[in-house]
Every structure is written in C-alpha cells, then in structure tokens.
C-alpha cells in the first residue's frame, strides 16, 4: 500500500456497492472525510511545501523549527489563526464582511466534486461538469469584490477593483482554452473527457492541445491571483488588497480558499489536458478498462490506487510549476496585465479553436486516427499564429510607448 495514496481510501470505500442501499451514507463519507478532512489537509501541506520551495529558491531553508523538517508548522499556523482575535472594522458592513470569505471558500470547494480522481471517483458526474466547474469558480470574483467593498478601506477597495478587472478578463481565455477539449470529446462531462483521453492519449499531445494547455495554465494562475498576477493583493503597493481588514480565522478562510483554488485549478489542468491518472505512454488505458469493468471492491481498489497516485503526482508537479513561476517572475503592471489578456490570450484561444477543429478532422473523425498528418498540418499553424499574435502585440506596445509622454518612456527604458 502506498502512503501517498492512502488518503483516498475513504473515497474508494464510499464507492462500495454494499453502501449503495443507503445513498446518503456515501455522501456523509465523502463530505466528512474528503471535504472536511483531506482537502484542508492537502492545503495545509501545500502551504508548507510552498514555503519550503520558496525558501530554496531564495537560498533559505524555510520552516524547520516545528517538528521534523518543520512538518508541524501548518498545524501551529492553524492554531495561531484560530486563537487570534477576530477584528471587524466599525464602519465595515458587518454581514457582507462575514459573507465574503465564506463565498470564496464555498466557490473553491464546489469546484472539487466534479474532478474525476480515479475510476468512478468523481463525487458527482453531471453531464455539463466542465461548464459547472467554470461557473462555480467564477463566483469567487464576487466574494473578493464584496470583501474589498465591505471593509471600507481604500486599499481593500483598490484591491477589489483590480481583482474584478483581472478575474473577468482572464476568465475569457480560461473558458476559450478548454473549448478544444469539449470539441474533441463531444461532451461536457469530466468523466467523458477522462475516458476520451484513456482512448486517444492525453489531449496535451497535440499542437492545439499544447497551446490550449499553456493558455489555460496562464489563465489559471491569473484566476487564483498568484504572482506574476497578484496585483489584487500586491503587498508592496496596497498592503494586502481585498483582505487587508481581515484578521484571525476570517483571514484564515481567505488563505484556505486561495490554496484550495490553487489545488482545484491544478486538478482541472490535470483532468482536462494531462489525462487524469493515466500514464503518458500508450496501452496504459488497457488495464484501466479491463480491471475497471470488474465490479468487485478489490479490482476497484487495485485500479484506483495507482490512478489516484499518478493523478496526485501530476497535480503536485502542476502546483510546483505555479510555485516556480511565483518565485521567478516579478509582478506585472496593470496595463500589461489587461493588454496581455485581451490582445494575446483571447485572439490566440479563438484561433486555437479553429486549429483544434482541424485536429478533430484528422484524428477523431476518421475511424483510424491519423496523428502524423494531424501534426504536419496543425503544428505549423499553431507556431505561425503564436508568432504573428506575439509580434503584433510587441509592435503595438512599441508604438504605444513611442506615443506616450517622455516620463513614462524614461521609466520603461530604464528597466
């Protein structure tokens, strides 16, 4: 038995057929163990992991005082947050101030039930799972706005304004970049998307899929407000942005929600483009199909433990990528942020839908997929469109700079 995948056992137990006679028992197990136990636990150790990774990137050691390797640090932090005094500013709008962090947290939690962690391990499988996922994750923008507005603090309000502008702008490329997947699957169900990738290989292994994955990753980082897109909470400019006035466990809720949504968007990227729990080389789908058709508990566990392990490994890599980007890149300027979304990402994702349709014609429509021809036609198209869009963007930026006042030009050339 694998330590890394032990946490998923209750999920597997919940699928047991003997429990089907009491439908609500499955929900209690899923809710109590997975949603209140495991996911917050993952978040706690993600924070620890980020501090360790960031420490190494900055030539430090990171947390190492509480427990071996600082492993008890998240627990100490949680106790600190819970025992701290909960201060609400007198002029704040009490109810909205209370509601805002809850809204963000609920939105982060609601994303997770549709993720297919393994075979039959999506807590629910609605036929429009992908749209549902995008819809509930868009609620968090509202929570952030309410948090900033209800605090009655100019820094909070500034952070909220930046957050809303950023989240609304980057939601467009986020949605557009998963259109190729919907096109190739012919369904919005997350489980159907997983099955399709078991059959045809990961979606990232195609030129339009690769471009879509990169676009989705950038949009994901922007959606969860992490560096280089952390303008809404830019510490050096507006204190802490929309959660400046939150303290104690209410701040803890923001913290939990932020890392939970990092986990959620990593799961989204993994499930949609990286083939879920399957391995990259061909024929790994076979044992999944064969063993999964058995109904026994043993075959379920045998199939699902490696699936979940590989899934979590991929999610871990994706999260590490986000930490890596965070430690490497500086924050964007506001104008760069907006023009990048609307002038680079949106056009590219629109073009990519058409290239994805070509890939569909070569690979998915004919009975026998013609990967070679597909690559030959779509790869140059993707390359050309990326180069054209980026060069137009650069030329425009240059023209903007030339037309701008001298003071700004001096700042720009000094960098």
């Amino acid at each position: 038995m694998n330590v890394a995948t032990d946490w998923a056992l209750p999920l597997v137990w919940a699928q047991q057929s003997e429990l089907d006679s009491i439908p609500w028992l499955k929900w209690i197990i899923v809710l109590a163990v997975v949603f209140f136990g495991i996911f917050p636990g993952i978040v706690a150790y993600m924070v620890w992991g980020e501090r360790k990774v960031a420490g190494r990137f900055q030539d430090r050691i990171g947390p190492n005082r509480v427990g071996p390797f600082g492993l008890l640090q998240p627990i100490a932090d949680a106790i600190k947050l819970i025992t701290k005094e909960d201060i609400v500013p007198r002029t704040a709008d009490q109810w909205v101030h209370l509601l805002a962090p809850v809204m963000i947290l609920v939105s982060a939690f609601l994303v997770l039930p549709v993720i297919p962690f393994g075979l039959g391990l999506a807590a629910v499988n609605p036929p429009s799972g992908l749209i549902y996922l995008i819809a509930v994750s868009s609620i968090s923008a509202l929570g952030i706005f309410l948090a900033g507005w209800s605090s009655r603090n100019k820094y909070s309000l500034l952070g909220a304004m930046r957050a809303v502008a950023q989240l609304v702008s980057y939601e467009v490329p986020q949605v557009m970049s998963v259109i190729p997947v919907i096109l190739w699957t012919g369904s919005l169900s997350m489980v159907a998307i997983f099955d399709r990738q078991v059959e045809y290989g990961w979606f990232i292994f195609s030129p339009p899929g690769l471009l879509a994955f990169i676009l989705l990753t950038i949009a994901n980082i922007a959606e969860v407000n992490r560096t280089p897109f952390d303008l809404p909470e830019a510490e050096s400019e507006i204190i802490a942005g929309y959660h400046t006035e939150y303290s104690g466990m209410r701040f803890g809720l923001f913290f939990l929600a932020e890392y939970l949504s990092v986990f959620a968007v990593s799961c989204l990227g993994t499930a949609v483009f990286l083939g879920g729990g399957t391995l990259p080389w061909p024929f790994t789908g076979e044992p999944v199909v064969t063993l999964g058709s058995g109904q026994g508990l043993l075959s379920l566990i045998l199939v699902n433990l490696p699936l979940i392990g590989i899934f979590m490994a991929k999610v871990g890599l994706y999260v590490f990528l986000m930490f890596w980007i965070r430690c490497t890149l500086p924050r964007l300027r506001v104008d760069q942020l907006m023009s990048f979304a609307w002038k680079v990402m949106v056009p590219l994702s629109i073009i990519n839908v058409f290239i994805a349709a070509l890939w569909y014609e070569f690979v998915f429509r004919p009975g026998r997929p013609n990967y070679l021809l597909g690559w030959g036609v779509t790869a140059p198209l993707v390359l050309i469109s990326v180069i054209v869009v980026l060069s137009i963007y650069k030329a425009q930026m240059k023209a903007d700079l030339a037309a701008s006042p001298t003071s700004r030009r001096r700042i720009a050339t000094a960098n």
Partner: protein
Amino acid sequence: MNQILFGVIATLGVLAALGTVLARNLVHAALFLVAFFFLVACQFVMLEAEFLAAVQVLVYIGAVAIILMFGIMLTRNIQGDDTTTVSKAGFISGGLAAAGLLAVLVFGILDDEGRTGRAGWRDVTTRPAVYPVAARASAEQTKAVNNMGFVVGRELLTRYLIPFEVAGVLLTAALVGAIALAVQDGPSTDDPAERAKKAAEHTAAAETEPQLTSA
C-alpha cells in the same frame, strides 16, 4: 419532495426579488439580485436543465452581477438618499408598468396555443420525472437530458441560427458603443505646455465631479 423543494426555492426567490427592490443599500440590493439569479439556477436544475443552470450561474453571477457591482462601486452614493428612494410619481408609473408587464405575461402564458400537434402550456399539468423512466422516455428526450450542451448547441446553430446571430450582432454593437463612449480621443502629446494645460483641465473636471463614496 419535488413540490416541497419547488415551494422552498420559489419562496426564497420571491423574497430575494423583494429584497432587491426594497434594499436601501445598492450593494445589498445587488447581493439580493445575485441570490435571485442563483435561485433561478436552482429552478433550472429542478426542471432537469442543469446545463442551463450552469450557464445561468456563469453568465449572470460570474459576469453580469460582477459588472453590475463594478458599476455600483463607481457611483457616488451607495446608501439611501436620492439613488435608492423613489419619488411618488416614479412609484406610481413604475407600479403601472410592472402591473402591465405582469398582465402581458399572465395572459400570454394562459392563452398559449402550443405548437402544432402539441398541447399548450396551460393544458400541461404534469411534467416528466427528474430522471426520465427509460421505458417511457424517447431516445431524443433521454439525450436532451443527458447531454444537454450538445442538444442546445445543435439547436442554436440550426433552427435558431438567425436569432443567435442577431443577438451576437446586437451585443457587438453594444460593445462598440460602450467603447466609443469610454474612449476619449485626442493623442497624448509630448509638448510640456499642452500637457500642463490638459492636466489643469483634468483637475478642474475632477473637482466638479462628485466624491466617490459617501460613508
């Protein structure tokens, strides 16, 4: 069970709608509106249209409500006073308009004749169960429930292509109009004297503009 759920959701929906109209604080009113949108999405789920429910949340809560809030944030007076209280004349005319709309809707729905070969709405007292019984439901019905995104997309691009495209043109026109209103023309200049003049104009304009928030 369905009846009880419908009753609860409908009651909450009406309360949220009332809250939207009666709240004295614009942000609270917008929040009630968000709750109302959410309850409409719940109603769609009750009608087996969970694709529509997801789109409702995505479009109305994720986009429309956010833009609305953004607009409210930039208005000068969020609480009370002339922005949220209605004058008597406004109350009467608004009430008349609302009653007229209600009358049009009620008579329109009650006089519905139904498409050829089908009964009108007023004659339908039952609707299919939440999970269509396989034996009774036609293949088309089952598909419409199980893969609604597919069915909606196909209908939009075949039978409803013209309305769909017209709506798209309309939205594009609105977008262009909004940009035309928002963009101030006149190139930025390098001439210091002219820039100083512009800055002075700007500050003068800012002084006449009302303050951002009240509280």
